[in-house]
């Protein structure tokens, strides 16, 4: 297990893996053998992650690696998974290049599995949700895209440019900014001068600063989309409550029973660690379970047999029903999405809590905006 333990999102990875391993071991392990988690901190650096990966395989003789929520890190590890013929699953990276690489040379790269959504799949979920929530309920018709300049947002933005207009939102502008940006005043002023109904976000490396400045400057346009840091329970404290009204799309959320396993996991995690898990906590927890299941079905820890077993995964986890896309698909080893497998949720920060506002079957609240947000008058 390789993670960014100093980053808020990454810090959910080790305890979630540990929790799953303890639960499995308490029930007798995998065919009588215990699961042991070896944890590495890569300090958000690809070279450190590569060294950790090499060490994990050669010194610690691990059977599989769960690695990182950063696309940059996972892309650096992918060739090593191929060279060392070791199964690697990422709980949170999103770049489409990960699955595209597998599709390009399946035999070499088949050891990598994408345990989270690809950026383009994420964009599809966001567009679908936007079509229903902001276009459907609020009659919004125009949007400005706001994305940080990073590996994962390139395919995200490409997909947005196609699917937002299809969902009924005309894209007025497309702003990409450096993840080092600290002052978002010029960015918000530029957006405001274009008068869109909604800002569609693609942010992960940043989150606290744009959100706080959005509130302090009273930018009258709602934010909707991907905001990874907003998935963390500590986001409210870090922004001193400026998160109020922020809408984001995720696969899971506190208090939302996506499957019967979701809430018991959140409760167990909270009891053990004192906070609720970030999005990668959910996927990591599931990954340990379906890896254990695959090892059991393969009857072996041999990497090639494990790959075949993982490809046959059909497991209901905390984020939905997990199945991998088959060989031949452009996103082979990515997760299947859509009805019956994995569907998105729209969450909103309200009064210090993350409330699910869409879809209907999971919603435990209604969309509401802070007073400075002006909605289109039709």
């Amino acid at each position: 297990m390789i993670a960014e333990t100093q980053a808020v999102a990454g810090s959910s990875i080790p305890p979630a893996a540990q929790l799953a391993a303890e639960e499995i071991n308490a029930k007798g392990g995998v065919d009588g053998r215990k699961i042991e988690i070896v944890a590495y901190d890569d300090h958000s650096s690809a070279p450190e992650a590569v060294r950790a990966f090499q060490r994990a395989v050669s010194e610690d003789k691990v059977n599989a690696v769960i690695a990182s929520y950063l696309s940059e890190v996972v892309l650096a590890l992918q060739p090593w998974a191929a060279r060392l013929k070791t199964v690697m699953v990422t709980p949170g990276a999103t770049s489409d290049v990960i699955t595209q690489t597998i599709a390009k040379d399946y035999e070499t790269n088949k050891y990598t599995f994408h345990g989270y959504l690809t950026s383009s799949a994420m964009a599809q979920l966001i567009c679908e949700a936007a079509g229903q929530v902001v276009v459907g309920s609020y009659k919004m018709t125009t949007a400005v895209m706001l994305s940080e300049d990073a590996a994962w947002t390139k395919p995200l933005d490409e997909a947005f440019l196609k699917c937002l207009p299809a969902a009924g939102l005309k894209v007025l502008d497309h702003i990409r900014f450096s993840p080092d940006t600290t002052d978002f005043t010029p960015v918000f002023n530029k957006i405001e001068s274009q008068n869109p109904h909604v800002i569609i976000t693609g942010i992960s490396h940043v989150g606290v600063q744009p959100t706080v400045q959005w509130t302090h400057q009273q930018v009258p346009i709602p934010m909707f989309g991907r905001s990874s840091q907003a998935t963390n329970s500590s986001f409210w404290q870090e922004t001193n409550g400026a998160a109020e009204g922020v809408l984001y799309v995720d696969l899971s959320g506190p208090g939302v029973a996506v499957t019967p396993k979701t809430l018991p996991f959140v409760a167990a995690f909270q009891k053990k660690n004192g906070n609720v898990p970030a999005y990668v906590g959910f996927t990591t927890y599931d990954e340990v379970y379906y890896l254990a299941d695959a090892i059991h079905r393969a009857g072996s820890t041999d990497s090639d047999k494990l790959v075949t077993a993982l490809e046959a995964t059909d497991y209901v986890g905390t984020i939905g029903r997990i199945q991998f896309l088959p060989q031949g698909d452009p996103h082979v080893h990515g997760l299947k999405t859509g009805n019956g497998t994995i569907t998105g949720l729209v969450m909103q920060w309200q009064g210090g809590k993350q409330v699910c506002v869409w879809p209907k079957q999971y919603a435990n609240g209604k969309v509401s905006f802070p007073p400075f947000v002006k909605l289109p008058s039709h």
Partner: protein
Amino acid sequence: MTRFWQIVIDGFAISALYALGATGFTLIFGVSGVLNLSHGAIMVAAAVAAWAAASLGQHGPYLAAVAGVAVAIALSLLTYGVAVRPVQRNPRIEVAEREIFILTATLLWGIIIQETIAYLFTNNAKTVPPLVDGVITMLGVRTPANEYFTAATCWIVIGLLWLLVNRTRGGKVVLAASMNPRGVTLLGFELSTMYLAVWSVYGLLAGIAGVLLGMFLGVSSYSVGPLTASAFSIVVLGGLGSVTGSLVAAFVVGYLETVTAYMISPAYRTIPPLLLLVAVMYLRPQGLFGRR
């Protein structure tokens, strides 16, 4: 036209903040010849402490701000005690090499502070609750009221510092020591007491700047390097040791960045000031207001 006023107002607030941060940095250099490369770490520590007091400690914004400044003063004195004084007093380090040893020591000390912050509070950005709520619309520009408050506080503090240095007896001793430390000791002033006082004042300035920055833009442990670098380039641009130079340079850098962010792209805002710095190094190595 709105855009012009936007640049004027936003640029003023950020420049005032830079000026305050750089003033402390240049003060320490002027008096004791120390370039304190843990500057950014002390500012970030102040902001994170204020955030922690407000968010985790449930204290009000004023108490939180005071806690942040107090942490900065304590850290500043600790910096002097841990990273600067031992080097200055070590007979095994040659006098000519002391500057480089102090540079290294303060740089490493800054990294220690930075890593400690990341370890305790993660490297996610933190923001300090603003002391003044709401927005003010002036000349068609909607600006958070706290931004005006930030600019005003910076100028008041810089003004008080000027009074302290030029109008009080203690301040005049400091001024004299910056010109001729030996002469001051001959007149019967204890240099070590004065250094403690100067480092406390520096901590106060860095702390206020850090907490205000935490309210205005937010900080994370990643901000440590860029903050030290910006204070350093402002001070070098203005002329090492010249307070007036630092103030002017802070405004040059602040406005250059703001204009870039608005007219070109926010992604490139730090580049033009660095180009200017290179140009100044070529054409006028002593800086805009340097004496040497």
